[in-house]
């Protein structure tokens, strides 16, 4: 399996600001998925971007993918206190789907 590495490790912003998190990886991919985990709760699937896509939107989320640089970014616009969570990028490639390797994630704190 393959691992995405999130950057920064921690991000602290004020409500209403935008938050950008980055993900880098080393191998070829079929798709890249972003997840959110609120403190003490399960993982929520946020968005999936395919390897042939460059940008995808979902509500206040915007994900970009640059396969030449092997990187992705997650932008949360007009952040809210409820966006406070850990965010993970997960790489899916080959036939090992389901056997995901998680990085340490980015811990986002949005101050009201």
């Amino acid at each position, binding site marked *: 399996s393959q691992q995405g590495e999130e950057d920064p490790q921690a991000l602290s912003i004020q409500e209403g600001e935008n938050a950008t998190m980055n993900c880098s990886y080393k191998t070829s991919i079929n798709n890249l*998925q972003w997840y959110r985990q609120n403190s*003490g709760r399960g*993982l929520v*699937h946020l968005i999936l971007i395919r390897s042939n896509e460059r940008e995808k939107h979902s509500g206040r989320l915007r994900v970009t993918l640059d396969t030449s640089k092997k990187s992705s970014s997650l932008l949360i616009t007009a952040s809210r206190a409820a966006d406070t969570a850990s965010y993970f990028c997960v790489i899916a490639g080959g036939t090992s789907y389901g056997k995901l390797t998680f990085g340490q994630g980015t811990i986002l704190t949005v101050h009201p």
Partner: protein
Amino acid sequence: SAVISQKPSRDICQRGTSLTIQCQVDSQVTMMFWYRQQPGQSLTLIATANQGSEATYESGFVIDKFPISRPNLTFSTLTVSNMSPEDSSIYLCSVVRQGVDNEQFFGPGTRLTVL
């Protein structure tokens, strides 16, 4: 998306005992997995739950410690056996919705504390 439920949502157990965690999915899925998240850590894959055959365990995890059942395509159980405080973690089941994208979804998790 797939709707996944887990029981119990949390439990506090004494060392030496065992706990069985249930995972129920609202639709038939081929691929089902169990993950562990130790305090302050990221997720680690324990095993793949195979329907009709023995689970496939990742390095560092063994069947005697984490027996898994998968009687059908919508249900699985994970047992944490002979528990110690080091087993205190969140345990999550996960399924893959097979298709073009093979999106993966996670249950709400079971928070286990071993005293």
